[in-house]
């Protein structure tokens, strides 16, 4: 092709990417602000003078039988048992966010370690670890989660662990791939030359280079874990007796009449869940193109 044709062909994608490369954009900060806001609300929920999330607010005089629609008294309305949806949704954020955060932390800790070990030492160790990842990825994630919740007691800890196990393989694969890539670079070879120990090379040379580009994956992974917890809770298989977004949505949609007559019961938790997942996805996506991480499989 001659030079002119290169000028002629307009490639909008390249331009868009170039624009993203330069600045991460206000959208990223908006998304991050929402995540911080919802996290703060969740942490501070018990101190915000909200209504008791487990209390019943039957209004005998005014409104007749619950569920009550959104009003000044109950911003998001109440459910069939006259429990305040606003308070419950903010309290529900606690479990959803704790599970999401601890799951992806566990995934990074275990998956990241395994991936770096596999990529750095290679050989049979790599074969075993990689095969483990493949086995873990052979279950659709929700199926594996359901199977494990069926076998264990459903405490906050076990649910977090179960969802953490699900994120081991995707995180581990990416960590392994970028370790493979970095361990042939000059600075690692140089460190080896001067006789640095394996653990020193891994901790000082590889870890920062492998983990920082993966920070985008942490945001995306947290979104996946929150959705997975929501799915489990919706099926009645998450933290038992816990208030979470998934279980609130389930209460609001357990029968067609509830959904038809009091859609707010399900819709407000759906809205918060959606906005949170959207923000995490968006921020993760922006961060990824900013850091230019090629693969994402979470």
């Amino acid at each position, binding site marked *: *092709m*001659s*030079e*002119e*044709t290169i*000028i*002629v*062909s*307009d490639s909008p994608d390249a*331009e868009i990417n170039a624009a993203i490369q330069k600045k991460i954009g206000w959208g990223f900060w908006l998304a991050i602000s929402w995540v911080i806001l919802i996290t703060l609300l969740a942490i501070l929920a018990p101190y915000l003078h909200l209504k008791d999330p487990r209390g019943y607010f039957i209004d005998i005089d005014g409104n007749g039988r619950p569920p009550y629609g959104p009003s000044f008294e109950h911003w998001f309305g109440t459910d069939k048992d006259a429990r305040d949806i606003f308070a419950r949704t903010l309290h529900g954020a606690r479990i959803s966010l704790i599970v999401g955060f601890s799951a992806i932390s566990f995934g990074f800790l275990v998956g990241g370690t395994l991936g770096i070990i596999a990529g750095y030492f290679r050989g049979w160790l790599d074969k075993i670890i990689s095969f483990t990842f493949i086995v873990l990825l052979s279950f659709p994630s929700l199926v594996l989660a359901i199977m494990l919740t069926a076998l264990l007691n459903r405490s906050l800890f076990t649910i977090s662990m179960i969802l953490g196990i699900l994120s081991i393989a995707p995180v581990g694969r990416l960590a392994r791939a970028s370790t493979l890539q970095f361990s042939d670079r000059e600075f690692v070879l140089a460190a080896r030359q001067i006789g640095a120990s394996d653990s020193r090379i891994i901790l000082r040379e590889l870890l920062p280079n492998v983990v920082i580009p993966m920070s985008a994956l942490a945001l995306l992974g947290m979104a996946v874990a929150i959705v997975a917890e929501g799915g489990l809770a919706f099926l009645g298989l998450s933290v038992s007796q816990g208030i979470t977004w998934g279980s609130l949505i389930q209460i609001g949609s357990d029968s067609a009449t509830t959904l038809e007559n009091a859609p707010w019961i399900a819709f407000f938790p759906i809205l918060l869940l959606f906005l949170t997942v959207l923000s995490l996805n968006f921020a993760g996506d922006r961060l990824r193109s900013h850091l230019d991480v090629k693969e994402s499989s979470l």
Partner: protein
Amino acid sequence: MNDSDPRTTTPLLEVSDLKTYFRTERGTVKAVDGVSFSLQRGQSLGIVGESGSGKTVLSRSIMGLLGRTNLIREGSIKFNGQELMGLSVKEMRSIWGQEMSMIFQDPMTSLNPVMKIGRQIAEPLMLHLGMNKSEARLTAEKLLTDVRIPEPQRRLNQYPHELSGGMRQRVMIAIALACGPTLLFADEPTTALDVTVQAEILHLINEQRVDRNMSLILVTHNIGVVAGNTDVIAVMYGGKIVEKAPTKTLFSSYKMPYTEALMRSIPKLRQASHTRLATIPGRPPDMVNPPLGCNFAPRCAYARPKCLVEEPGLTVTENPEHVYACFYPVGSPEYHERKLELSQRSDLLSTGGQN
């Protein structure tokens, strides 16, 4: 040229002051900057220039094939008396393939890799001439025979990757000829081909032009390619036509130093094989911020202060068909003066080197 033929008095194509700019992040690229010429039916025009001179954009701009985003296109293009400028893409489609068609540079990438040859040739036939499948197939077979492809019937069912580069270029010519266009563009039709096939393809294009009484615009960077195949040659530099003349006149009495430089870059058989090919020093001008004066001045050995500040217009020679844009053309006193200086200097250098 058939000046005696009365029908040729209204030109088939008349381009006046055509400008084609692209808006980019760096600024506006003036790829074609005020080009005018006309072309009679059956006539052939060679457009010669280095890459970056705007010749490909010129041909695509005339045909209207450029993407519309960030494009500025001004001037007038009259085809068969009809003004093309301002026509919608929809209106242009009935002209494309039927009235005007184009042979592209690279036959390796310009044919659809997952579509059979036969269908690619039949497509414009069915679209423009309303043929049914079997008619189109017969015509396609005949077209393949016309472009001298052996075993045409078998080729119809083959995919492009099963053919050699030269064969694929012949297929492309067949597609371009399919609906009997009156104007054929050939954009560097031989650049991507083996040297041995190049002459055959040029010969084929020219032969078909004569047989079908088509006009041809042949775009190339190699002035040697147009030598025997066109009636008129236009030399382009920096988005402008800098010299235009009937082929014979141009070769015998070119006026632009740039044309001279292009001529010197043609490999000659008589030259000893170890002689270095003359190349033009420097790079084509930046089309976002073109030079103030003559575009070629920064690279021109004969440039004088005037060339750097003032832009030369087109001057007509004693032959009205021959125009050029230069203050101190080949043959002028200033040219000879500078040439003498240059040869003295190079003598000095070479003798100095040997001592």
